[in-house]
């Protein structure tokens, strides 16, 4: 074997390794970013002794980097009632993450369960569930949210309920699609011939096989839910008045756009980075499970 073929093979190996490393990086980096947000959301408001109802008129509308009367530096400035913006953003991030995780849990559980049942049993059950899903999808999510908010009132739990109702459908659809394609695979038939009943088939045979795309859709939905909560809060139908959210902070800052741009912009950037991180993570998970990338 001459030197030239060795180099070619090595080169392709290196390219392949780099590609696989790239995928691993794209998974690690967003996870780190999201992790930082989680840590920030938990600890920063405590460290800053954040009280959403405190008003300090002397410190209002201070630009980023200003020193506050009590000696600390407001990294991102203060808002229109004198609150440290950084602490408020992190408190808002707390709301975003809680709403996101809560919605995923509810919508995820309901969506996966119904999707599995619809896909596995088919027939009338499938038809009924899918029609319900279709009807629900016909309502624009925001309108649905406003409707439910006006009926149930505002509050974090209510937002979680609203967003879960809006989002279970897509999770159910993805699950159902996966189950339909797995159902006809021979190993599922093999389980049937062994005598497996429906519970065994759903829990031990179909669910593990469907996990990969479900994970991807859950990650993507996480970002979407956070955005939706921010939008609802921006419109005033999300979190109640005393609870800061990235959306409501942005809303409050619109009146001061020309004078204190940081109040709207910085939470917006924070939101952007968080949602971007979830999107990249979802993409990377999909690539991780892509069989073509694995053998190269």
């Amino acid at each position, binding site marked *: *074997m001459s030197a030239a*073929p060795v180099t*070619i*093979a090595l080169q*392709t*190996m290196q*390219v*392949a390794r780099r590609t696989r490393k790239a995928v691993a990086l794209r998974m690690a980096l967003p996870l780190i970013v999201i992790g930082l947000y989680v840590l920030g959301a938990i600890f920063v408001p405590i460290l800053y002794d954040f009280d959403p109802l405190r008003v300090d008129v002397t410190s209002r509308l201070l630009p980023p980097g200003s020193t506050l009367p009590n000696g600390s530096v407001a990294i991102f400035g203060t808002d229109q009632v004198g609150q440290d913006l950084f602490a408020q953003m992190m408190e808002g991030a707390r709301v975003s993450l809680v709403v996101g995780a809560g919605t995923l849990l509810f919508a995820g559980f309901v969506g996966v369960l119904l999707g599995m049942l619809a896909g596995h049993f088919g027939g009338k059950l499938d038809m009924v569930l899918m029609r319900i899903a279709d009807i629900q999808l016909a309502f624009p999510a925001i309108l649905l949210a406003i409707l439910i908010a006006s009926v149930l009132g505002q509050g974090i739990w209510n937002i979680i309920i609203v967003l879960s109702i809006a989002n279970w459908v897509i999770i159910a659809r993805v699950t159902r699609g996966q189950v339909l394609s797995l159902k006809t695979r021979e190993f599922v038939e093999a389980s049937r011939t062994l005598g497996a009943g429906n519970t065994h088939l759903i829990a031990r045979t179909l669910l593990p096989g469907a996990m990969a795309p479900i994970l991807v859709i859950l990650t993507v939905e996480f970002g979407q839910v956070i955005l939706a909560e921010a939008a609802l809060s921006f419109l005033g139908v999300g979190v109640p008045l005393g609870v800061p959210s990235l959306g409501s902070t942005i809303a409050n800052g619109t009146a001061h756009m020309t004078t204190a741009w940081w109040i709207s912009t910085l939470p917006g950037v924070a939101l952007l980075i968080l949602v971007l991180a979830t999107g990249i993570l979802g993409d990377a998970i999909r690539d991780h499970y892509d069989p073509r990338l694995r*053998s*190269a």
Partner: protein
Amino acid sequence: MTMTQPERDATSSGTPLLSVQDLAVEFSTSAGVVRALDGVSFEVSEGETLAILGESGSGKSVTAQAIMALLPRPAGSIAGGRIVYGGTDLAAQPIKKVRELCATEIAMIFQDPLSSLNPVFRIGYQIAEPFRRRRGMGKREAWAKALELLKRVGIPDAETRIRDYPHQFSGGQRQRIMIAMAIALEPRVLIADEPTTALDVTVQAQIMTLLADLQAETGMALILISHDLGVVADVAERAAIMYAGRIVETGRIREMYDHPAHPYTQGLLDSIPSASTIGERLKPIVGAPPNLLSLPTGCSFHPRCPFATEACKAAVPPLRQPDGWLPPHLAACIRSEEVLAK
């Protein structure tokens, strides 16, 4: 299946059309580099049919992919050797150039016609496409040519069926359509990769007859790749048997089947169930095909070979003529003479 074939001289009639010399192909996988082909050489001339036979992992399909520049990238690459066609070494050409050439002069048909035909276009459109793109023909002219081809490959009611979609045809008919597309631009070499594997037995015979007829008409060279020793027996003059990325035996097909000179060939022939073995136990080859990531040293077949000796582990046996036998029957075994004597 009985078919009379005029006896053809096994020596190539004149200069070879396609000559593969010492071809090596490697794949990089997450577990390491796999040498899918290790020094494969063969040639095929005008009007000749060569069968490349082997089981899974032997490298027979990779050979066709390498010739047609269809190796999956970035994993697969040609690591050495030459593919000489019309004076140029295809292995050294950029892929774009090779694909251009392949569209017109070297054609290929695949195992599963359903996945090779585009389901959303009418077959008339698909067959006419090469004429329009490569020969610059107008729509009407190309369509007429397509109709001609359909009739030639034996699709009944071609005038009406030319407007149908692939899913409206049976498996055998789809394969005929694929053949029509492949011979549209009158290629000089046709490579058929397992053309009949997915088809019913009765249809297999028809397709092989069609290929033989087309070859007789056009004088093109035909390379048949298969794992089925029987299906090619009537149509091919010469054959090359592949194992673990190397050719282990090659020669006239009758000669090889009647007098195998390599233990693998002999083992294969012995393990095929047939009418004469009814009620008896089959004689399989022990063991399993080797993992290409960790090939045995020396001759890759030695762990499964009833003739193996210490010397077999030392070095890869070169293809050579067994003493006392007429060319061109080559086998990569140091004990061919004993194999032949059995």
